C-alpha cells in the first residue's frame, strides 16, 4: 500500500472515530438537556411527549424542553457552518460571524426594526425578520472586509476591523433598547444570546437556510477545497473563484444573521467548531471538517445551554456566556498558532 493510500485511510479512520465520538456525546448531552432542569424527567418520555406537544402547538414543560434542546443543536450547527464557510472563503483561521461583526450587524438591524413593528409569528413577519437581520449582517461583513482591505486583508487586520465594526453595531443596538422598550430585560436577554424562549417559528427559517446552504455546498463540492488553497486551482476546476466566494460569503452571513434574529449574538462557536475539528482530524479536507464542525457546534451549544440552566438554578445563565468561555480560548490558541507559523502576515 502506498503512503498516500495510508494517509487517505488514516484520515478517514480518524474522521469516523472523531465523528462517532462527538455525535455520541452530543446524544448524551441532548438527553441530559431533556431530563435536567427545574425537575428531573425521563428523557425518553420528554422526547415522546414533547414531539406530540410541538405538533399540536400546545407546549408544556416537555415540549418546551425538547424545543430548547433542538434549538441548541440547530443553532450550534448553523453557526459552525457559517464560521466554517467564512474560514474557507477568507483562508483565515480567525474568521467567525461574531468576530467579523456580522452577528452584531444583524442584531442592530433587528433591534431597529422592532422600533417600527412588534415581532409576530406570521410567516411574512418571519421572512421579513430574516431579511432584516441578513441585510444587517451583510452590511457589517462588507464594512469589515472593506476596512481590512485598507490594511492588506491579513488575518490580523480582518480580526481588528471586525472588532471595530462589531463593537459599533453592538453598542448601536443597545441604544434603542434602552430608549424605546418597556420589557427591556427580555430584549437584552435575547440580544445577549439565549435559548430561554425557543419557538417552532424560529427553527423553520434556520433549518431552511441551513438546508439550502448544505445543498449549495454539495453542488459546488469539487472546487470547495481549492478555495482554501488557491484561486488559480478553483479556476482550473472551471469555477470563478470570486463568484463562488461571493455566494458562500452571502450564505455564511445569512446563516449567522438568521440565528441572531431569534437567538441573539452567540460568539466564537463559528470559530471554535471548525478550528477544533481541523485540529482533531489532522486535515482541512472539507468532506471531513464540515460534518465534524456541525456536530461539534451543536455539542458546544447544547452543553453550554445545559450548564447554563443547571449551574445555579433557578438562574438561567445565557448560553452565550458559557459558549464564549469555551470559544474565546480557541481564538487565543488560533492567534498563538498564527504567530508561530509566521502565517499571520501582520
Amino acid at each position: 500500500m502506498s503512503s498516500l493510500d495510508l494517509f487517505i485511510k488514516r484520515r478517514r479512520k480518524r474522521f469516523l472515530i472523531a465523528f462517532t465520538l462527538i455525535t455520541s456525546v452530543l446524544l448524551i448531552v441532548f438527553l441530559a438537556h431533556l431530563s435536567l432542569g427545574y425537575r428531573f424527567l425521563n428523557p425518553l418520555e420528554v422526547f415522546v411527549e414533547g414531539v406530540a406537544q410541538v405538533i399540536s402547538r400546545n407546549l408544556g414543560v416537555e415540549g418546551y424542553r425538547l424545543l430548547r434542546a433542538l434549538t441548541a443543536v440547530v443553532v450550534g450547527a448553523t453557526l459552525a457552518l457559517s464560521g466554517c464557510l467564512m474560514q474557507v472563503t477568507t483562508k483565515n483561521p480567525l474568521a467567525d460571524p461574531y468576530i467579523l461583526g456580522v452577528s452584531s450587524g444583524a442584531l442592530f438591524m433587528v433591534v431597529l426594526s422592532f422600533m417600527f413593528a412588534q415581532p409576530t409569528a406570521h410567516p411574512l413577519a418571519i421572512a421579513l425578520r430574516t431579511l432584516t437581520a441578513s441585510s444587517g449582517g451583510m452590511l457589517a461583513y462588507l464594512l469589515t472586509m472593506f476596512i481590512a482591505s485598507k490594511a492588506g486583508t491579513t488575518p490580523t487586520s480582518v480580526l481588528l476591523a471586525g472588532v471595530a465594526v462589531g463593537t459599533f453595531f453592538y453598542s448601536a443596538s443597545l441604544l434603542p433598547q434602552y430608549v424605546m422598550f418597556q420589557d427591556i430585560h427580555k430584549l437584552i436577554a435575547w440580544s445577549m444570546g439565549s435559548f430561554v424562549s425557543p419557538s417552532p417559528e424560529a427553527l423553520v427559517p434556520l433549518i431552511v437556510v441551513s438546508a439550502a446552504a448544505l445543498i449549495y455546498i454539495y453542488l459546488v463540492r469539487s472546487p470547495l477545497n481549492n478555495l482554501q488553497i488557491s484561486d488559480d486551482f478553483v479556476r482550473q476546476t472551471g469555477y470563478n473563484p470570486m463568484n463562488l466566494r461571493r455566494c458562500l460569503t452571502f450564505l455564511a452571513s445569512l446563516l449567522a444573521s438568521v440565528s441572531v434574529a431569534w437567538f441573539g449574538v452567540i460568539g466564537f462557536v463559528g470559530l471554535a467548531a471548525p478550528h477544533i475539528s481541523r485540529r482533531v482530524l489532522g486535515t482541512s479536507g472539507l468532506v471531513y471538517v464540515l460534518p465534524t464542525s456541525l456536530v461539534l457546534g451543536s455539542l458546544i451549544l447544547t452543553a453550554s445551554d445545559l450548564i447554563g440552566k443547571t449551574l445555579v438554578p433557578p438562574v438561567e445563565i445565557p448560553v452565550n456566556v458559557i459558549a464564549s468561555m469555551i470559544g474565546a480560548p480557541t481564538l487565543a490558541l488560533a492567534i498563538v498558532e498564527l504567530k508561530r507559523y509566521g502565517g499571520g502576515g501582520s
Partner: protein
Amino acid sequence: MEVRNLSVSYGGAQILKGINLRLGAGLTAVIGPNGAGKTTLLKAISGLVGFKGIVKLFDRELDSLDQAERVRLVTYIPPIVEALPDVTVGDLVLSDSMVDHGLLPKYVEILQLHTLLTRKLSLVSSGELSRALLARGLSRNSRVIALDEPLSHVDVRFQLILLKHLRTLSQEGRVILIASNQLTPLLSQVDYVVAVNGGEVAFFGSVADLLKTDTLSRIYGVRFEVVRVGDFTDLIPVEPS
C-alpha cells in the same frame, strides 16, 4: 500549440504585447527578467487570465473549448500558494477532483512526499511546498503543462529529477512550458527557449541558436560565459554589461 497576437492587460497597463508562438510537443523554457511577463504568458495559455488574441491547443481554439475540456487539457502549476494555514501536504495533493488517482501515488513517490503528507503547509519548507504543488499538478495528466518557477526552491537533485521526468513526458507528446529564472540547469535540458522581455518575445528557437545571439546579455543586462561539458551547457554570469 499556437499563440497568435496574444495580449494581456491589467487595468490600463499592457503586460503582454502581441505574442506569437508555435510550439510542438517538447520541453520549452520561458525565460526573461523579473516582470517580463512569463507568469502572465503561462496563465493566459492556461485560460487563467483574460486575453486578446488566439491560443490554439492541438488545433483547437482555447475559447472554443468548453470549460471541462479546457481544464483537463491544460494545467498551470503555480510557484507558491497562500492557503489556510491548517491545510496539509496530503490535503493539497488530494484537493484536485481531476487528478489521475493512479498517477498521484507515483508522483508522491518521485517527489518524496511520503513523510510530509500530514505536515501543514504553514510549516513545510519552500522546496517541499514546490514538490507538493508539482505532484498535484503533474497528476492531472494534462497534455499541456505550464510550470511556473518549478526550479527556484527545490534542491539540485530534485531539479534534475524533475527535468528528466518532464523530458519523458514531453516525448510522450506533451507540450511543456517551464518559466524560470534558473538558467542552469534549465537550458541544458530543454528543446526550445522563449525569451520574453517587456511583454514581447525577444527570442524563440533552440538553445544552440539562442547562444549564437546576444539575446541573453541584451535582456538581462549581464554578460555570460558559456561552458560546455559533454552535452551539458552552463552559463556563468560574469558581470553586468
